[in-house]
């Protein structure tokens, strides 16, 4: 549906389009108007996710002293006086304060009422906005109320009792839910096709059904198929996106394209099988928690930056090639077992603390330079063969037992 608009857009028409979009209306059938209207659409679920954080910042700002003046916004020197002027103003007029507050309260109700009926339902704003759009002649009215259209008060909020792990709502998770919903409806498992009422189990079940591929042929899901790499990847991809506890098709996970995997959050990545993780680029691996990285084969670990390796448990480090080990900080090397330390070049061993060196077998110690040997405790030196001891200065030899 792409009506070619061969009218060359003139300035007046452009201004009209901009105004119309900003005001919330769009002429149906005009693709450019639709794009602008979509950009200016009312708030969607997820766009208001940071509200509590912002309110906390607001509350904190109330407690802090007024900020130092910033050019362009506040003339210097007025920082405190503006606030105290207002306080005095309201203080002097006790009766006026009540009236002023009452006035503000009413205006506020009107302001909040225009886009959200209740704090916890940002989705209601979308619903309200679209019922307005419906009344202005956009796609047939009667949307609100047909199955799948969120109604105010219920949109965006999980129905009570549904067991849905809290995953951040994104465009892809919305599409994944849609796919599962349509499949579930086709199978008779659900009354509506939105997928919003499905539990985690229901979603996994739906995604495992063969009918998924048929549902995916709709152009609506093209971006989802694109992100997953192929239609056959979508069930597992959606399981990862929706934070489902089990994969619908575990055997196929390794087929997911790298581009799909690398965009997943860490919490999902760390659930992938090691064979799949091993294929991820370093930039992704270094973000994973140490416990997950530790499971990777040494050949992969060897490619990770030192900062990442330094956080791994010893058991993961012991398999690293010497060339990688020598880059680790001394504090990390000091934790490695003797069997690994033995393999390190002398230059690196020389940097280890005495307490660690003391644990090395004499055959290794014998290779260390005198300057290092000198620092070893007599009890350790005493185990060295005479050929080595002969290299030590007399002052040191004098401290040795017998």
């Amino acid at each position, binding site marked *: 549906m792409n009506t070619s608009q061969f009218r060359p857009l003139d300035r007046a028409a452009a201004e009209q389009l901009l105004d119309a979009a900003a005001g919330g209306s769009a002429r149906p059938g005009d693709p450019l108007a639709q794009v602008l209207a979509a*950009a200016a659409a009312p708030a969607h679920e997820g766009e208001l996710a940071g509200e509590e954080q912002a309110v906390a910042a607001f509350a904190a700002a109330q407690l802090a002293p007024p900020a130092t003046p910033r050019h362009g916004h506040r003339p210097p020197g007025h920082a405190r006086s503006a606030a105290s002027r207002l306080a005095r103003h309201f203080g002097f007029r006790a009766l006026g304060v009540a009236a002023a507050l009452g006035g503000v309260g009413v205006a506020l109700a009107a302001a909040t009422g225009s886009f959200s009926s209740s704090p916890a339902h940002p989705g209601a704003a979308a619903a309200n906005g679209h019922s307005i759009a419906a009344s202005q002649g956009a796609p047939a009215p009667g949307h609100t109320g047909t199955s799948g259209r969120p109604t105010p008060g219920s949109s965006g909020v999980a129905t009570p009792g549904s067991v849905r792990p809290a995953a951040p709502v994104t465009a892809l998770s919305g599409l994944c839910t849609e796919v599962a919903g349509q499949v579930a409806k086709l199978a008779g498992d659900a009354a509506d096709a939105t997928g919003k009422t499905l539990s985690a189990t229901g979603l996994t079940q739906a995604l495992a059904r063969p009918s998924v591929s048929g549902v995916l042929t709709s152009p609506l899901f093209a971006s989802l198929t694109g992100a997953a790499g192929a239609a056959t990847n979508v069930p597992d991809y959606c399981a990862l996106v929706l934070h489902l506890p089990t994969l619908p098709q575990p055997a196929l996970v390794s087929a997911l394209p790298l581009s799909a995997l690398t965009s997943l959050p860490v919490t999902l990545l760390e659930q992938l099988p090691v064979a799949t993780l091993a294929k991820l680029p370093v930039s992704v691996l270094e973000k994973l928690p140490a416990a997950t990285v530790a499971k990777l084969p040494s050949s992969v670990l060897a490619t990770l930056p030192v900062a990442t390796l330094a956080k791994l448990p010893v058991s993961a480090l012991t398999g690293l090639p010497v060339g990688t080990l020598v880059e680790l900080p001394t504090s990390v090397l000091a934790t490695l077992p003797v069997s690994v330390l033995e393999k390190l070049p002398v230059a690196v061993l020389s940097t280890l603390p005495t307490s660690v060196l003391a644990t090395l077998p004499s055959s290794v110690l014998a290779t260390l330079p005198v300057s290092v040997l000198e620092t070893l405790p007599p009890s350790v030196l005493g185990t060295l063969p005479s050929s080595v001891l002969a290299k030590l200065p007399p002052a040191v030899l004098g401290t040795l037992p017998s």
Partner: protein
Amino acid sequence: MAMPAPARSDRSDLSEAVRAAQQGDEQAFRAIYRDMQPRLLRYLRSMVGDDAEDVASEAWLHITRDLPGFRGDSDGFRGWAATIARHRAMDHQRRHRRRPQSAATPIEELGELAAGDDTARSALDTVATQTAVAMIADLPPDQAEAVMLRVVMGLDAESAGRVLGKKAGAVRTAAYRGLRRLATRLEQAGPDDK
């Protein structure tokens, strides 16, 4: 819920809420946030892509801190907040020396979404918005900003000019060029390009 005359959030007057919030009224601040955050997020997405949420959080820190000193009406407030967000975005771009791209739905799909035959579901609406913002973000930066400030932030050319440090005429020209480019792109993406 009976609505008064189409009081869409883009045209709602924040003046009272701003004044009340300056007095410490938390509900008033929430009203401001609910009006401004979607706009700021989308505007920032056109500048810094997927880092929009982070940059928006930084912007709110500045907005809440400097709120007591703000003087002006509703449009002035929107422009002021947009300017703060823009500065944070530019700081971010300098720190990261790149403009991150966000994954956009192929443009060919937008026609289908916009046609949206029957039930327009919220997931598709979200995708439609993100796709639209991504399309606008593909424009040359000055055109993208002009269009976003006009359409998403709801600013007129003068106010947008103040945010961008340009004359109103320059903003109008940039927005006009942006729309023509968008129109061309939409005409080229026919329904057969799948």
